[in-house]
C-alpha cells in the first residue's frame, strides 16, 4: 500500500514537472505572444460573427 501511495505521489510530481517544462517550452517558442495577439482583438468567430 505504501508503495502505491509513493507511486501516486511520484506520478503527480512527475506530471507537475512535465507541465512546468511544457509551459517553459511554450514561452521559449513565444506561444504566449500568439495567445496575447488573439486575446486582445475581438474574436469574431467566438462571438458568432466571423
Amino acid at each position, binding site marked *: 500500500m505504501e508503495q502505491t501511495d509513493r507511486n501516486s505521489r511520484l506520478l503527480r510530481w512527475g506530471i507537475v514537472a512535465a507541465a512546468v517544462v511544457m509551459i517553459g517550452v511554450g514561452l521559449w517558442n513565444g506561444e504566449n505572444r*500568439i495567445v496575447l495577439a488573439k486575446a486582445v482583438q475581438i474574436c469574431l468567430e467566438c462571438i458568432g460573427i466571423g
Partner: protein
Amino acid sequence: MDKRKWIQALFAFTTNSNVQGFFSGKIYRGKLKNVCVPGLNCYSCPGALGACPIGAMQAVEGSTRYGVSMYVLGFLVFVGILLGRFVCGWLCPFGWIQELLYRIPSPKRKVPKRVNNVLKWLKYGILLVFVILLPILTVNEFGLSTPYFCKYICPAGTLEGGVPLLLANKPLRSAVGLLFTWKMAILIAVIVASILIFRPFCRYLCPLGAFYSLFNPISFYRYSVDQTKCTRCGRCAKACKMDIDVFQTPNALECIRCGECVKACPEQAISCGFGKEKPRQTKRVQSE
C-alpha cells in the same frame, strides 16, 4: 450563501473586472491576456482580463508556426493535476452562470442514468475533434485555421462576448448573420436546459471540463471515503447533482468537487483536500 457560491462570484467578477468595456463595447487589451484563466471565460468578453484556455489552445494550433500549444497545454495540465475539476465547481464563470440559472424555480429534471452515461462522453469527442484535431488538420493555404469549438459551439462566447458587444458596439451589429443565429440557438438551448437540469453544458459539452476530468482520479486535490465510517447509506449519491455514487467512486471523472456529498454524509466519512491518499479504500468497495 455558502462559501463556494461566494468564491464562484468573486472569481467571476475578478477575472471580468474591466467594467468600462461593457459600456464602451471594447475589450481589455493589456498584457494580462498573455495568461490563461483556469475556467471557460471568453477573451472577447468586454470584462475579461485573461485568455480563455480553450480559445487560446485553438489560436496557437491554428497559427502558422505551431501544432499543439505547449504553453496552453502545460497550463491546463498544471491546473488539472493540482485541482482536477475543482475548477469547474469553484472557479469557472460559465459553470456559475449555469448554477444561477438552475436556481430559477421550475420543475427540475433528472437525466436518466442510461442516457447520462452515453451523453457524458460527448464532451470528450468535442475536445478531441473541435478543439484539437480540426484546428490542427484543416489549415488553409496561409497555414491558418478556424477555432472550430469557439465558432460553432461555445455558448460562453455568445453570452459573455457576443451579446454585450453587440449591445454596446453599433458597427458590430451590422455584421450579424446566420452564424450568430446558430450560436444564439445553442445559447438559448443551453440556458433553457440549465434551468431544468444541473449544469448540462458542463456534463455533456464542455471540452475544458473533459480535459480536467482526466485528472480527477490523480490530482493533488481529491476526495476520500473512510470505509470504517461509511455505512453505504447512499445519502452522498442522492445529494450529488452530477449523479455520482460518491461512496464508490469519490474521484469520478464527473465530480466537480462541489462538496454537497461531504455536507450530506451523516457519518463525516467523506473528506477532501490536498494529498488525500486513500485510493485503496475505494478499490475495496468497488471489488465487493
